[in-house]
């Protein structure tokens, strides 16, 4: 990966339609590598999630056209919430296979065109429209169903195992887990205070998050990302081309991808696919994945770690930009990616490990800096223009590994000292598909 560019993610960009947004991000990426010219680009992969939002089918063709890339080859990539991550890997494959020397990957979404509740309806159409949508199913509801079970498995059965009254035990477990989920929201919003591309940077307290409007119990508004307009662009190149173009590229060391059933109701109850540092005894009596965990996230991690030669991700990765569409899915993802064992996600938050060192979150973060998660602010604070999101993560990871955060953000607070290796993680509806890509600095 040699370059990247972004628009600021915003509630709405009425001054730019999707073509202009991508053009802005593209111009930024091209300018960042002066020796890179349009003639060097062999083709593109273009991603956006929903034709309902664009109300323009084949909008990717219009992007290709607007950037002046015709008659070079292009494909549109769409895979729900993981659209950006999938497009990134499609670009990687185009280069790794030798088909292209330089591939442009561009993604966008224009979600401001309808009101939030209509947007919720559009996105809900990415769940089974025969079985899930007609009962009032929508994504915040589905993730709430998942975290309720996660809390039951991992909070009710551990910290509240001693409480005899079942209802009381579950109430207490939900309350305790909600407090910890709020810490994740506080973290991502505060990190974003130093990211000029973020849509919702703010300083919140745990109480602010807990008292925010309830969307789908127990998830409040501040635990959920919002709809956004935005675009992101990545330029990927073969090793030879990369070093011809720049002396500061980043290596895509390994990629992984996993899937699961579209309907939550169909998720099976089996065994955990183990990472190298886990054993069968760790998960005796656990029905997996059920609806408490994302098997696709585990499958994607297994493949990416294998290819990148990673055995213990918490020790061998310096940071992760992961898909926190919900504070709950961030915690569930810690476990899928093996940063801690299944069931230890809440403890992992409280240990402080995913927080940045030297930031005042308003509560103790003992192991801060161990493995910062979403140093950029993630989806919760940056916004989630679906087709751009996974590529936004790649751009943040690129700048982090190049050590160029200050140049691009005008603020060095989020630059991690000596970050050598990071992961990006993109995730589609209820974990029906997930991508993980491992990036490494080369200097």
């Amino acid at each position: 990966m040699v370059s990247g560019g972004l628009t600021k993610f915003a509630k709405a960009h009425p001054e730019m339609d999707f073509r202009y947004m991508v053009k802005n991000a593209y111009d930024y990426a091209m300018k960042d590598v002066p020796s890179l010219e349009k003639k060097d680009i062999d083709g593109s992969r273009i991603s956006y999630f929903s034709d309902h939002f664009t109300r323009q089918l084949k909008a990717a063709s219009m992007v290709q056209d607007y950037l002046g890339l015709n008659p070079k080859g292009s494909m549109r990539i769409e895979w729900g919430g993981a659209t950006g991550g999938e497009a990134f890997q499609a670009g990687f494959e185009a280069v790794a296979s030798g088909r292209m020397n330089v591939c442009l990957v561009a993604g966008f979404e224009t979600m401001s065109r309808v009101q939030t509740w209509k947007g919720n309806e559009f996105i809900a159409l990415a769940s089974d429209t025969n079985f899930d949508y007609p009962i009032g199913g929508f994504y915040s509801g589905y993730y709430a169903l998942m975290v309720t079970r996660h809390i039951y498995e991992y909070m009710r059965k551990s910290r509240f195992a001693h409480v005899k009254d079942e209802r009381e035990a579950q109430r207490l477990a939900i309350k305790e887990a909600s407090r910890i989920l709020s810490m994740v929201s506080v973290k991502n919003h505060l990190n974003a205070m130093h990211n000029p591309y973020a849509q919702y940077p703010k300083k919140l307290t745990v109480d602010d998050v807990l008292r925010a409007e309830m969307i789908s119990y127990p998830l409040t508004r501040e635990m959920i990302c919002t709809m956004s307009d935005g675009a992101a662009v990545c330029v990927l190149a073969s090793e030879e081309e990369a070093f011809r173009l720049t002396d500061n590229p980043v290596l895509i060391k390994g990629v992984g991808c996993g899937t699961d059933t579209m309907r939550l109701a169909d998720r099976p109850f089996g065994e955990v696919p183990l990472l190298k540092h886990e054993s069968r005894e760790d998960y005796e009596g656990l029905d997996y994945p059920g609806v408490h965990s994302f098997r696709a996230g585990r499958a994607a991690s297994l493949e990416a770690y294998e290819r990148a030669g990673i055995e213990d991700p918490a020790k061998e990765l310096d940071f992760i930009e992961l898909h926190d569409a919900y504070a709950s899915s961030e915690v569930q993802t810690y476990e899928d990616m093996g940063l801690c064992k299944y069931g230890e996600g809440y403890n992992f938050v409280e240990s402080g490990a995913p927080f940045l060192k030297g930031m005042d979150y308003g509560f103790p973060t003992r192991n801060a800096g161990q493995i910062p998660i979403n140093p950029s602010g993630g989806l919760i604070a940056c916004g989630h223009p679906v087709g751009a999101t996974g590529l936004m993560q790649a751009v943040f990871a690129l700048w982090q590994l190049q050590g160029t955060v200050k140049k691009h953000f005008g603020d060095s607070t989020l630059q991690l000292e000596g970050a050598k290796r990071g992961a990006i993680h993109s995730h589609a509806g209820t974990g029906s598909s997930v991508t993980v890509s491992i990036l490494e600095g080369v200097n």
Partner: protein
Amino acid sequence: MAASAKQLKKYRRYRDVMTDVLKRGAAVYKNKDGSEQLVIKSPYTINYVHSYASDTRFFLGLAQNRLYGSECKGCNYVFATPRSHCMFCGEPTEWKRLSTKGKVHSWTTCEFGGEEFLKETPYNLALVEFEGADSLFMARLKECTVRDIYVGMPVEARFAKKPEYLVRDIWVVPSGKKPVKRTARKAVKAKRR
């Protein structure tokens, strides 16, 4: 577009533009740099013709107060949400009438939703473990509130008297619950708000 160009109002906040566009058909967004963007209303409605294909029996079953799942003859897995081929071994499944009693596997109370369902909020969704089935079934959980529900709560299915031939022809209620009269249900809803 009803409004003529002369009548267009200009706004600096996108939210205000959106409100006016939806009301009047068009408005102008005034950007910080002084540039102006025309924003118009663009309605879109469709009537689809839809076949339930091999899932048809499930939906016809609901109209007869029956819950059908499907059982794989290859590996004996029972799918509470029907599918005509097994996702494990690929064999065709057979219809199996399921018990209408079960337990809450997981749940939530939605205070917000897609546009179509906003007027019904708050409503509960549950993933249900029906007796004898290996997989779950997602349904509305009615006649109880966020304060009553817990994982493991016994529930039983209810069926719509006038079927819409949609999956919402079935829902669940807490077990042993007597049918609530319409007036009483309204009172419960009022209390909740």
